[in-house]
């Protein structure tokens, strides 16, 4: 699969051959930092001064390079496809090699950053429980009514929420039975076949 770059992106990446070999390394590092931590205008200004290029061009170059890296990592394109995609830009072979190396070195890390961007459902954190017995109420004395109170702690994107639930013991037993059945599904032939094929 080949990567398609727009005219604007090709223009942004045009700064690379002008900047020279060492600068490409520096811009590559800035591009990966952009993906790890977000924009760093001060670092870009420092690079602009060092390489004697104006800040806007540096910014565009870094952004273009990070787009190149994320799209390539996202689609997991092969070396051959990457080289062919980059050929379109008309850079020297040396520069193409540097870009390929940059891609291969950082691909795994970029993919792990991208995987964290998927939307997540609230996930289980912990469960507190309590067993009570109701002995009397305003309307009725001499009762024996057991109840289990649960506090389910959930995590969603670093937000902690808690849900309070209450149930009687027979519903709790039914709940446990259902959950054990769900776990038991993993052992059926159907699930085992799928798991084997995924590996």
């Amino acid at each position, binding site marked *: 699969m080949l990567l398609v770059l727009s005219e604007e992106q090709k223009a942004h990446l045009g700064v690379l051959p002008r900047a020279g070999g060492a600068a490409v390394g520096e811009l590559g590092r800035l591009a990966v930092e952009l993906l790890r931590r977000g924009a760093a205008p001060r670092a870009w200004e420092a690079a602009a001064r060092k390489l004697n290029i104006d800040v806007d061009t540096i910014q565009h170059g870094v952004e273009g390079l990070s787009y190149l890296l994320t799209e390539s990592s996202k689609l997991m394109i092969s070396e051959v496809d990457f080289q062919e995609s980059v050929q379109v830009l008309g850079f020297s072979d040396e520069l193409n090699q540097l870009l390929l190396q940059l891609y291969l070195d950082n691909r795994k890390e970029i993919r792990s950053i991208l995987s964290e961007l998927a939307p997540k459902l609230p996930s289980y954190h912990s469960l507190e429980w309590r067993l009570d017995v109701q002995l*009397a109420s*305003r309307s009725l004395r001499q009762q024996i009514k057991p109840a289990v109170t649960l506090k389910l702690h959930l995590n969603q994107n670093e937000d902690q929420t808690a849900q309070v639930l209450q149930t009687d013991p027979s519903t709790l037993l039914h709940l446990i039975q259902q959950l054990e059945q769900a776990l038991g599904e993993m052992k059926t032939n159907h699930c085992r076949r799928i798991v084997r094929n995924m590996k």
Partner: protein
Amino acid sequence: QRFRFCGDLDCPDWVLAEISTLAKISSVKLKLICAQVLRDLLGEAIEYEKILKVTSDAKLESGDVKATIAVLSFILSSAAKHNVDSESLSSELQQLGLPKEHASGLCRSYEEKQSSLQDRLKACSLRLSRLGSVCWRVDYTLSSSELQDVNEPLVHLTFNVQDGERGRVAAVPMTLSADKFRVLLAELKQAQTLMNTLL
């Protein structure tokens, strides 16, 4: 094989694995680490540097130190949870392979702090909300826009309710007529009598 200190269930595999790490430390040092773990379980600050000092002579790696603290934490809190006496705990730990000296040192520390541990665990149990304080005021309504001579007493009550562990206090204000207030007081007194029969 079932163990009382694990709640009549099998001992978790990781606890079994770490018993051999415990045996590597001398029984005197184990007792010192135990004292620190008990401090942590009782809600006082754990003095990690003291533990590191003790374990540095025994040549334990940092992973082993954390594992030791975790397994001691589990054994002591689980034994307190299931109200296991120190002799049974000692014999069960020896069955798992902990040398006699280590087990008796551990259990002596446990015995001293068993009831404080259980009190602390009781205090940490799930509590949905608790009453902080009650404020009241008695007014006398002279007159209103509806009726010229009202002449009735009125009670203002504010319950300050603390929400669970997070501790945000919410004020619940209400006003009651004299009759309603008498009914409330009578019902609460009945509930109090019932509670006293259970204490």
